């Protein structure tokens, strides 16, 4: 257990830094002058026109999000392969080809099901 107590102390220090700065020290020394503009939610620097509940988001966003995740995961696996390219050799290349082929099936499927065509 002695080894873990170090970990516990480290965790306490790590947690205490944001707690101290955000909730204890900063409120004591900062000036508090809230305004209408200041309290608005941040939206890429553009003034928000309405609340999120006033709009319906197209379900398309969900499909695009899913597609994004698919290709995001692809890059996650591509980078380590690129770093160990020489050591992995042809075996790695074949494995990656299989992996990409499976992803491509999903891509073609999405394409033919008109996920990529807008409106």
């Amino acid at each position, binding site marked *: 257990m002695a080894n873990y107590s170090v970990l516990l102390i480290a965790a306490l220090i790590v947690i205490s830094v944001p707690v101290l700065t955000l909730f204890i020290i900063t409120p004591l020394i900062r000036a508090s002058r809230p305004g209408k503009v200041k309290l608005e939610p941040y939206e890429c620097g553009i003034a928000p026109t309405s609340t999120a509940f006033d709009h319906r988001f197209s379900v398309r966003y969900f499909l695009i999000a899913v597609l994004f995740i698919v290709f995001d995961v692809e890059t996650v696996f591509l980078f380590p392969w690129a770093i160990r390219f020489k050591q992995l050799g042809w*075996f790695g290349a074949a494995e990656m080809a299989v992996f990409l082929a*499976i992803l491509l*099936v999903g891509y*073609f*499927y999405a394409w*033919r*099901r008109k996920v990529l065509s807008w409106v």
Partner: protein
Amino acid sequence: MTLHPLLEPGWQLAVLPELILSGGGMLLILFDAFLPRAKSALAPLALIVFIATTWSERLFVQGGTYFGGTYEISPITMIFDLTFLLAGMLALLFARDYLDREGIEGGEFYALLMWGTVGMMMMAKGLDLLLIILGLEILSICIFVLVGYHRRMPVSNEASLKYFLMGAFATGFILYGTALFYGATESTNINTMARWFATTTQTTPLLTIAFVLLMSGFGFKLALAPFHPWAPDVYQGAPTPVAGWLSVAPKAATLIALVRLFNAMGPVLPKVSWMNMVATLAILSMIVGNSVAIVQRDLKRMLAYSGIAHVGYMMIAMLTVREESVAAVAVYTIVYALMNIGAFGVVSLLMKNENDPHTLDDIAGLGFRRKFFGFALALCMFSLSGLPPTAGFISKFFIFKTAIESGHTTVALIGILTSIVSVYYYLRVVYFLYMKEPAEGYEISSAGGVFAVGALTIAVAGILAIGLYPTPLFQAAGNAARALLQQ
């Protein structure tokens, strides 16, 4: 030349069934996406993929472990593979006519059925708890989508969401139990765990918690009471052929995983009271399933409760893992696949509209009008209730026989008594089929093409053949179980 240390020679043949099924699934969704008009070719194509997979099973004559001792091919995995393939094929054939009637046929349905089968094969062959969980997840994701496949029907969506929320929660239990097993035995590999258990004679609280968590998770997947309440709701909402598949195949996969686990813990199990817990689950399942099924008017809910009771019977045989009991479970799953998917299949065909409840009154008097369907449903009911000369009788008989020989007389007695109770609600279906007049103005559905008739023929022939001549199947299962337990 070895490609990689974890790829033993011959690995291609070891995973050939899984490769064919996965590739076939991808082929089917692409086929449907590129040729959306050729929907009628989907089911035959899917059937060809399933038959090719079944054929590829026999290419493998030499058993062994692969992928660094995490994947085992043996006669028992082959028997369970064939059970999964049989269940998949029956569901596919029933689903073809059903999907056609509902106008929702698509390549995704068959692809998901195949990928789910791959997940079950991984569960049956996995020698590592992590691999078993991986297979379970592949299977579960396919089930979530298949249950909600009737997208425009709210009840189907509801069932899918219910099963997703509770299934994800149950997987958490299994994962947590596995983590604690790893903490206690220093491995997730079943063979390494078995070596660890062989050196110990007592258990620790950590192990008990791990076992309880794992049993809760697997109990959920098996729909064992008290982890069963999702089953009736999900079966009711799911497309009926999917409900039939769901009530059989995942249970078979979970049971073979449990057989491996119980076998690994072999030396410890008789000394601790864990098996009392499993016996309690079995008794509860049989009592709850059989008594609640009596009051159900909806056929799908009734079959769901009967499924809960049947898992209870199978768990009786699991109380002592030995050659005869494993063989009895293996045979029971095959027979259960034939009769339960057959029953769900007929129910899906006799109904006109999926959205209505499938009540007993809907099948009143159908026995004389749709002669073959009526006969098949009646035979499935006889078999489910365990009346000779059907396969249900002989498989149930062996379950109770092995339980009594292992010394679990009380549990077996409760099983026999509740099974007598079950005869009432099974035969009530037959009563409605043949001795009731249909309601005024009720029109009989004319669904049921060549696919469904073919599937029913397989089910009927299987039930009668195994019921009249069970010896070869029991011998094969016995030999396979001996090979499994001798390792």
